[in-house]
């Protein structure tokens, strides 16, 4: 196939795809940031997204109100996260085991419910999705307008969430306390910070954000639920969080990079990149993450207390 790299539509398609692919990663990645900054590893993001994508679809199907579906997705995300929180914070279980259990449960649960409710395997019928937003003036600008002027609301929400998250984590007292709890919970407790409350809050928040990420899949980019439609995005989001050094903006950058790798893979035919195996592009996020963890590209140091249950002594 002929490729004309001077053709601006290719670049538009690249940017649009990158943003689309990055959006669920950004939302879930922010969830990971909050959870881990407070000291709780949340590898359940994947499962939470999947369940939320399903619940969002379900409510939108029955109410025909997609925004109600979004609300349901967020609420169900927070609810599953609450389960994770209780298991990890109250009962001090292994956080990775709890997360894995939720991930395994989510696949079975959504598959089962799909069959139960719609008597149909594989995918749900189409449901109303949330309408795209257009950004008034920007939309009119040539090229730029086509790139960023009109998207599903989730794209814009994810970017707004990055800005708010960064403000909360680094400019508010709540953020200072969250980071303190994730670094040295005992020190935080000795100055009167409620370690457990902060951790519950952050894990719930991470569930809500992962829920929003799930909604973006079934009610934003598609208008239906498909079995296992998250396809590992929850894990890529965690990778982005690590690659982004547990900061909102770092996570955003990593998600955009991973989204770009995805976009390249999607457009590889058009771009004449067929000499790169698509599998390699799919591997890229993980390879980059391992490189970051191993210290090859900028060392990533997790919050010191991440993954360690906090115990009051007596």
């Amino acid at each position: 196939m002929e490729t004309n790299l001077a053709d601006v539509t290719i670049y538009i398609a690249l940017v649009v795809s990158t943003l689309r692919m990055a959006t669920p990663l950004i939302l879930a990645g922010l969830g990971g940031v909050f959870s881990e900054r407070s000291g709780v590893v949340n590898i359940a993001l994947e499962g939470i997204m999947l369940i939320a994508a399903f619940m969002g679809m379900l409510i939108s199907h029955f109410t025909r109100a997609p925004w109600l579906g979004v609300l349901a997705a967020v609420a169900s995300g927070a609810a599953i996260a609450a389960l994770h929180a209780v298991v990890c914070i109250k009962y001090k279980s292994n956080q990775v085991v709890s997360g894995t259990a939720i991930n395994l449960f989510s696949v079975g649960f959504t598959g089962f419910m799909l069959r139960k409710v719609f008597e149909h395997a594989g995918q749900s019928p189409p449901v109303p999705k949330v309408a795209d937003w257009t950004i008034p003036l920007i939309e009119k600008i040539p090229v730029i307008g086509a790139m960023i002027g009109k998207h599903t609301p989730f794209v814009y929400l994810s970017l707004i969430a990055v800005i708010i998250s960064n403000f909360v984590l680094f400019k508010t007292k709540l953020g200072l306390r969250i980071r303190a709890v994730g670094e040295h919970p005992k020190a935080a407790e000795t100055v009167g910070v409620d370690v457990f409350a902060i951790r519950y809050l952050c894990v719930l928040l991470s569930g809500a954000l992962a829920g929003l990420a799930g909604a973006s899949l079934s009610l934003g980019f598609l208008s239906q639920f498909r079995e296992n439609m998250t396809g590992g995005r929850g894990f890529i989001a965690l990778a982005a969080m690590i690659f982004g050094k547990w900061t909102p903006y770092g996570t955003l950058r990593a998600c955009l990079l991973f989204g770009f790798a995805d976009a390249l893979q999607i457009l590889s035919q058009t771009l004449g990149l067929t000499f790169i195996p698509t599998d390699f592009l799919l591997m890229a996020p993980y390879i980059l993450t391992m490189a970051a963890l191993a210290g090859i590209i900028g060392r990533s140091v997790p919050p010191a207390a991440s993954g360690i249950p906090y115990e009051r002594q007596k």
Partner: protein
Amino acid sequence: MPGAVLHMQRCLASVERGFLTLKESIGDPVVEMRDITVKFPGVIANDNVSVDVYSGEILALLGENGAGKTTLMNVLYGLYRPDAGRIRIHGEQVQINTPNDAIRLGIGMVHQHFMLIPPFTVAENIVLGVEPVNAAGKLDMDKAIRDVEELSNQYGLVVDPRANIDDISVGMQQRVEILKALYRGAEVLILDEPTAVLTPQEVDELAAIMRSLVHQGKSIIFITHKLREVIAISDRVAVLRRGKCVGTGETKNTTAEELAQMMVGREVVLSLEKEPAKPGDTVLRVENLHARSGRNLPALRGVFFDVKAGEIVGIAGIEGNGQSELVETLTGLRKSTSGHIYVNGIDVAHNQPRALIEQGVAHIPEDRQNRGLILDFTVAENFILRNYYKSPFARGINLDYRKVQAHARDLISEFDVRTPHENIPVRSLSGGNQQKVVVARELSSEPKLLIASQPTRGLDVGAIEFVHKRLLAQRDQGKAILLVSLELDEIMSLSDRILVIYEGQIVGEMAASEATEGELGLLMAGGHGKRGLDTERSERSGQYGQQIQEPLRTHVKPIS
């Protein structure tokens, strides 16, 4: 009972000390702790303890390791909830369930292991939990920094509010901790073993700070296990032994000997008898040794020294100046980046630990629980960690457990290890007995060179005496001993020769008989022996009640 001797009446404050005459003579107690009992599985950490603190005084809480001092203060600070007992503050009965309750009642605590968040700045650490915010709800770090500077000036506690905790000296970290309590309006300040991490000069400076604080109306509870500090610093003293309060009284009415006896529960010899050393051939020679720390920073920067047969060479220094890395490099646990280590003339700088063991190097590691023992192995198994692979314990691929157990029983009786039998996990032994297991294992191997790193850390007086005597006996048998310790007293009383390590280099060497604490302290702080400025400073800080306006020794990196 020796405690009775000291159970005196509360009387008027000592009028001789000028600083107290300003206030009313001692009135009502600020803090009354009554019949506090705290039980942990297997131990009663506090057994019906009652202690009072009066306004404007320094109360020393004295006791051996494990006596229950920290536990008692954790109760007062709301970290532990006692099984029984009452607390009254200014005469009013209170419930202290969380540190927040304690803070509200004007109690502040500086923990033995600092409660600072390493990647945060000094100001962030000080305001955490009571952060100033502007009208928009945004964290107001500028105000935080201004507040910290103001407080810092008011109390003469010099800190750099913008520096990261990671980058400042231990002394400054301690001042940050004190400021943290003062920032929350603490009236009663608990200092848990504050002198453990300081040089003798810094201890003087801390004493001056404490004096200045009580002068400004604060009350201080000062935890220590060092008698000298009790005598020098406190107004009153309460002695804890095995969870019980065995005496309280005014410091000026007691003596170090009496306190020692109360603390330990029997007569103790405060000084160690030892013959002069008869050094023989050089056993260990270290030349221009370099090594990096776990964080990949230079930790040893050209170390030279030697240790001869029949002498104890002590390495003095403040924690974190390369001692751990030196010991690890000498025992094959850390790779040196350059330099030579000769044991009996053979260069072993690149040897694995087992090769060093075969060379006759024994090692008492500073962390017995993580390095010295495998806690879930039995006592008998821990005894053979050095040589399990050799006859008579190994037979082909099997271990001969009958021999292992017989060996264990021999060592248990020779080293007086208190354990029901040799087949219980070493985890269930007390700290002192765990250390005896390590010492027994290392000494029974008949080493030529013994490297002892903080061999008495966390032990009680009885166990300390035991370890010291064994080390001296080894010396007298002609072994070469390298002793690394953070306790200057231990270095001074055991060593024949003292080296001072500072920032990865040996910066001073002297015969133990000629060493003075002051001189060692200056070297440990990076000074070069006696010099005008430093002497002047320590004199000034020795005067009670005077504020220290000059910056103390710090390692502050410039902020980028």
